[in-house]
């Protein structure tokens, strides 16, 4: 078999491709649900209801979507410039730690400054921490050609061990019992709830603003053009006068910064302090989200809500039917692969003859 580039993509294919991807994902996960001995239609019904079926379900889904939007944007902007940042998980934790370091109670800086000043400082510190963490791998890639995939991946393990160390010592909350946790963020820095009696917080607005801002940046600015040029063909971009190293470094700062913000917003909006399990892999899921969204910033928002809904819905469904929650990860992984194949088939046609 071989692939032949299509000259035009038919409207029908544009509709059929995503539909086919969804059908394929449902078919695979149905088999798994049957294996677990649960009724398929009821499983999906409960999953949908648990993720999107009520005000409470939606509020939980949006709460879960907030960090995913940030990490999804972090992956999307980096992938646009062909910088494969797989280290968002570590950058998220670095951002969370930086946030607590600036705005923490006792043991933090304890600065007696107006929250109007401290809040931006805290966000800046978090973004900076994430950005600096990615700067090393980006420079190693640009200067020495060291593959950033492996370095950023390995950094995640190093950062998590570092967090564990700090939570045992320097940043440990001396009054906390049980599992190690950092000192709490000052009350004044904790984000307000968007809807009363739910957990969804104003971090959602910041996440949406970042998505919109990134879209504008990529579409309407010179830097955005440079990023797309470097991603499309770094050699041609260099030849055309685009500073490839400069663009790569800027993208690294942007991507790491967004991932760092994910950590700060989680702390300020949801957990109030840093724990070792505050992120169930948001950094990695962000990569999947960026790919599902074809690295489009506004698509990232939609993909985040979809993935968050599946994750939240699976929790509810699992409690009722006993199907393991890992079904959510299977659905997300299968849909990623299915969407990639479907997108390709809209651009290429398969020829079976020689």
């Amino acid at each position: 078999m071989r692939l032949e580039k299509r000259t035009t993509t038919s409207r029908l294919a544009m509709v059929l491709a995503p539909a086919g991807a969804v059908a394929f994902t449902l078919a695979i996960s149905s088999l798994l649900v049957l294996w677990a001995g649960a009724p398929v239609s009821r499983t999906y019904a409960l999953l949908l209801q648990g993720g999107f079926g009520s005000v409470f379900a939606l509020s939980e889904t949006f709460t879960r979507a907030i960090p995913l939007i940030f990490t999804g944007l972090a992956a999307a902007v980096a992938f646009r410039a062909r910088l494969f940042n797989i280290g968002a998980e570590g950058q998220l934790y670095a951002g969370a730690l930086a946030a607590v370091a600036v705005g923490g109670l006792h043991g933090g800086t304890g600065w007696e400054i107006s929250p109007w000043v401290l809040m931006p400082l805290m966000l800046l510190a978090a973004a900076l921490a994430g950005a600096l963490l990615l700067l090393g791998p980006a420079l190693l890639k640009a200067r020495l050609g060291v593959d950033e995939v492996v370095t950023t991946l390995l950094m995640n393990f190093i950062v998590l061990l570092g967090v564990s160390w700090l939570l045992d010592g320097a940043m440990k909350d001396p009054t906390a019992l049980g599992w190690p946790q950092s000192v709490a963020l000052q009350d004044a820095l904790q984000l307000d709830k968007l809807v009363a009696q739910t957990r969804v917080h104003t971090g959602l607005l910041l996440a949406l603003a970042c998505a919109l801002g990134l879209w504008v940046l990529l579409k309407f600015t010179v830097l955005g053009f440079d990023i797309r040029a470097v991603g499309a063909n770094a050699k041609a971009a260099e030849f055309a006068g685009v500073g490839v190293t400069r663009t790569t470094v800027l993208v690294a700062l942007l991507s790491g910064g967004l991932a760092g913000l994910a950590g700060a917003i989680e702390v300020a909006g949801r957990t109030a302090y840093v724990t070792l399990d505050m992120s169930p892999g948001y950094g990695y899921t962000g990569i999947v989200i960026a790919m599902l969204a074809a690295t489009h910033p506004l698509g990232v928002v939609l993909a985040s809500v979809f993935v968050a809904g599946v994750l939240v819905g699976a929790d509810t469904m699992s409690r009722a039917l006993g199907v393991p929650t890992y079904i959510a990860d299977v659905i997300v992984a299968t849909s990623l692969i299915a969407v990639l194949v479907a997108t390709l088939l809209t651009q290429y046609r398969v020829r079976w003859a020689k």
Partner: protein
Amino acid sequence: MTDVWDILANPAFWVAVLRIATPLLLGTLGVLLCERSGVLNLGIEGIMVAGAFTGWLAVYQGLPLWGGVAVAALTGAVLGLLHAFLTVALALSQHVSGLGITLLATSLSYYGYRVSFPKVNTPPTITPFAEMLWLPIPILGQQTPLTLLALLLVPLIGYGLYRTPAGLALRMVGENPQAAEGQGVSVAVTRTSAIVAGSALMGVAGSFLTLSAFNAFFFNMVNGRGWICVALVVFASWRPGKALLGALLFAFFDALQLRLQQSGAAVLPYQLYLMLPYLLSILALVAVARNAAYPQALMKPYRKGER
């Protein structure tokens, strides 16, 4: 310093080094086969989880230990075939496909484990491979047959790569697929075979954890070993002999940090010792970066008739 000498003088330390090196060696050889043919396989982390799970499950269901290893290899091969379909036949991004397969294989394994054992608190166990005490070689005699297999694979893969027509074809499609195609070598078939074989080795690497190093399946038991293999293959300049060297060196430091912690001689917090293997991998990557002889066509998808 005397503590370090005491540790090094103890044969048990070297037994541990070889044991820790085994899954890394198997995984690195697997990555090596894939990358030599020009395809990055970031699916390794998930393939190792899947190999660890299916190999263990097969033995738990009554298959002999070697049957479990075969099942793990088969699992790896099937996942490799999927990766080959996505990256070779469809020429999709190798990064993304690999990460997708890691996510898929990991979540499927965890799902399968939970479905098979819904309500267990302590993981069920099997009887793992026994040490080869019949072997009159000091440190190797205290290893299991899987370690011997891994060591034998090094010269075998070296011979296959450098001394056989199939090995030449594999290296050719990894360096210059157009030229290989011109010589009548099918890039698609060669790359697919290399990925399937390499992924089968990754599956076996995973099964070492559940059938030899431990006797049960745990969540997070692979814990980044797959990613370390991806780093080790760069350190090894894509050569089987150096892959053995790299795996041993890495295992040496890993075993040393463990002993230092246990002996109470550790002056630093344990997390810093645990960081060492990962830091070492990054340092190794940086150290060889200038001279790294990457296969020329690595990560470049090949579409017949397209430049």
